[in-house]
């Protein structure tokens, strides 16, 4: 049967007219993407501010009266949770997933636009609920982003009443929002590709977002289940996770529940979550590197396989977060082994990025700088992951700053690097204007060097045994006084990096009106999203006719071709020989 794309059934393509249907209750994937993106960046800035407050306390203890131990824990928790879930997941999948999938697949919109709109509004509500917890009695929860029971819901933990309840409800709403969006992404990729767009002709961005979405659909239920059960423990007094215990000299009504059960559930979600944010970043960075090095991505097939393999493996490594929770050595061995195995496809990807650069015609544009920066930060974070994946090494390092340094490099900074690369790269498509290059470079260098100034020393603090989630060191004999100097310098770097992000925000806002006009396809890219008749694309994306795809997305610097790029919509050129034909001639 000939394939029809959704909005080619004309009745689906109702052009919105009023401001409200166009920008508020919009069903256009591009508007929803921007809504997702700007909400995510907004909460991300709050999380950034919280990290600044934490750093102030750590760098200059006893200086700031308004940060007490409780509020420190609340900052840690909200910072971590916002960054991982409400910023990265939402921006990568809700933002870029929404924007890129239909455009890169050659569809007019997502297949379920209404559901897509609901997805955003559920996300928005989840953010409101989360932020509301700053204003309730007791403040937000301070249980750490992992929310481990029993302490998360017990007296003594900040926000053990309202804060944790709002957090759990907000997460549940987020999961519903994600599921609605995710159904759209996978179905659109499977059903609404334009003719000629076979799966293996899709850009890696789409592949990665596709697989990450499947991971999300299968992993987020674990978060939902744990949120529901913990809510019941908190509100109705069930004992799913709560053991029999004495609190403040009082016997509580809980009976023999199992906190470790929660940890399993949480990390069954939590580890795939790392890849839910990492995979889209992998995909987008592959495309950015390929475009700006004017070279086809090295080992496209292997890249796809690696994405799929990483996705599958990420469901069997979760307990490497629980080595200190006591487990049978055989399980420790199993999870250490799977963790190390996952490094293989990951390393393949890193090699392929580097090999794409090799002998490429590298343009050091701002997106490319961020992409190369990502290769650095990701490799560093990945290497320390290999250490922590081994039980015997993890035990002493667990809950120290070594872990903080590791996960910030690998899943904090690295996806953020790619997000910046992606925003600098696709901003011209979304707005029709370029971001300022000078400001962009300044932003890059401060962020990139600052990242190292912040996180490299943290590894040493970890070796010294400086514990994670501590408000102050107190009198810890084994930690030398000089650690404090290191902490102060980290704080200064962090504040500078935080301030540098304001350059970026300024650039994004000012360039909306005053940026250089981008015109069509300013990076001379091959993939479909740059081939729309209008920039930025109008509602329905493609004008009267859907594009036809004749080739894969990486025909850069093809020998014999006139230009150094051949768009996917270009039929075979004169003089261009397919390798297959060439091989047959021999």
């Amino acid at each position, binding site marked *: 049967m000939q394939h029809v794309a959704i909005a080619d059934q004309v009745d689906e393509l109702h052009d919105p007219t009023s401001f409200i249907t166009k920008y508020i209750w919009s069903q256009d994937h591009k508007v929803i993407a921007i809504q997702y993106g700007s909400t995510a960046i907004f909460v991300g800035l709050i999380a950034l501010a919280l990290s600044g407050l934490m750093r102030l306390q750590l760098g200059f203890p006893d200086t700031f009266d308004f940060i007490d131990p409780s509020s420190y824990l609340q900052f840690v928790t909200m910072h971590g949770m916002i960054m991982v879930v409400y910023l990265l997941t939402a921006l990568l999948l809700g933002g870029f997933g929404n924007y890129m999938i239909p455009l890169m697949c050659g569809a007019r919109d997502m297949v379920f636009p209404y559901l897509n709109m609901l997805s955003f509004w559920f996300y928005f509500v989840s953010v409101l609920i989360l932020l509301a917890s700053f204003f309730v009695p007791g403040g937000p929860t301070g249980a750490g982003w992992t929310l481990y029971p029993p302490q998360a819901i017990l007296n003594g933990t900040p926000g053990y009443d309202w804060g944790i309840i709002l957090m759990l409800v907000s997460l549940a709403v987020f999961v519903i929002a994600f599921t609605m969006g995710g159904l759209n992404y996978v179905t659109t990729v499977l059903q*609404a590709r334009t003719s000629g767009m076979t799966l293996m002709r899709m850009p890696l961005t789409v592949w990665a977002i596709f697989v990450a979405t499947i991971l999300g659909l299968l992993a987020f239920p674990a978060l939902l289940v744990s949120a*529901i059960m913990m809510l019941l423990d908190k509100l109705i007094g069930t004992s*799913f996770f709560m053991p029999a215990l004495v609190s403040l000299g009082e016997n509580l009504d809980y009976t023999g*529940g199992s906190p470790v059960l929660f940890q399993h559930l949480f990390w069954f979600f939590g580890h795939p979550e790392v890849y839910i944010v990492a995979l889209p970043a992998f995909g987008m960075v592959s495309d950015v590197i390929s475009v700006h090095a004017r070279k086809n991505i090295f080992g*496209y097939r292997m890249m796809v396989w690696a994405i799929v393999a990483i996705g599958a493996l990420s469901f069997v490594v979760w307990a490497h977060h629980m080595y200190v929770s006591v487990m049978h050595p055989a399980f420790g061995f199993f999870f250490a082994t799977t963790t190390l195995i996952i490094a293989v496809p990951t390393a393949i990807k890193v090699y392929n990025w580097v090999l794409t650069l090799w002998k490429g015609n590298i343009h050091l544009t701002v997106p490319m700088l961020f992409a190369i920066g990502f290769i650095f930060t990701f490799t560093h974070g990945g290497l320390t992951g290999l250490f922590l994946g081994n039980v015997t090494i993890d035990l002493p390092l667990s809950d120290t700053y070594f872990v903080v340094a590791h996960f910030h490099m690998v899943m904090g900074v690295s996806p953020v690097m790619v997000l910046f690369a992606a925003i600098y790269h696709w901003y011209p498509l979304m707005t029709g204007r370029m971001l300022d290059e000078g400001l962009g470079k300044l932003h890059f260098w401060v962020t990139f060097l600052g990242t190292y100034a912040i996180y490299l020393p943290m590894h040493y603090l970890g070796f010294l045994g400086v514990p994670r989630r501590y408000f102050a060191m107190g009198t810890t004999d084994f930690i030398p006084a000089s650690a404090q100097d290191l902490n102060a310098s980290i704080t200064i770097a962090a504040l500078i990096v935080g301030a540098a992000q304001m350059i970026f925000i300024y650039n994004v806002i000012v360039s909306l009106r005053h940026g250089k006009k981008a015109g069509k396809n300013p990076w001379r890219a091959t993939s479909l999203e740059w081939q729309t008749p209008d920039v930025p694309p109008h509602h329905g994306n493609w004008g009267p006719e859907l594009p036809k795809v004749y080739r*894969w997305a990486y025909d850069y610097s093809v020998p014999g071709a006139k230009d150094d790029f051949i768009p996917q919509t270009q039929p075979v050129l004169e003089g261009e020989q397919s390798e297959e034909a060439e091989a047959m001639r021999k």
Partner: protein
Amino acid sequence: MSLFKTLQEKPWETPEAAGSIAIAQDFDPAKIAVRFIMAVVGVLFFLFIITFLARSQYPDFEALAGQPWQPFSDASRLWINTFILVFASLFIQFGVRKAKEQRQDAVVIGVSLAAFFSVLFLVAQLDLWRGMLAMGFYVNTNPANSYFYALTGIHGLHLLGGLIVLANVVFRVWYDDKFSSISRPLQHCATYWHFMLGIWVVLFALLTSESETINTLAGLCGF
């Protein structure tokens, strides 16, 4: 398998001159979506059940069936509810059959009865809750009770969600006066209904298991 074949394609070798590979497929996004929904809901219940088995190995867990004083040793109430849900499934399937034959009256009857039995099931489940509470089996007196309420509650909510979608399908067909187009969406609803029935049967089996059975299952899972 075609997935493996797809993954072995070498896209760089095959630019085409004219025409373009049509992505030959049935355009039915709702079908794909229902499959994914079933996967997601399946994982949700799978995880609940796994935690149930893990939690059952702690000493305070008392299975709901086995001894005479335990509520589901006599499972007749559960059987009644199960039959109600079976009827819902049967009637919605009947509706699908008739929709394919374009028999409007029969479809209306089938869908109405399916909706009726589904609502009846929900009411019957609520009544089951009432009965349990009356017998002193509160949510928090025992983890098995907690699981009973949580599992039936979540299952009921999912059925309710299905009902909302079904209402939406009916409403759209009605509103657009396009009876001929009901067959496919109704088919998707039916798939979901059978799936919810399947989940219920699993839950039924779990909730009426005696402690030896539960222990064996938990043992198989390594708890």
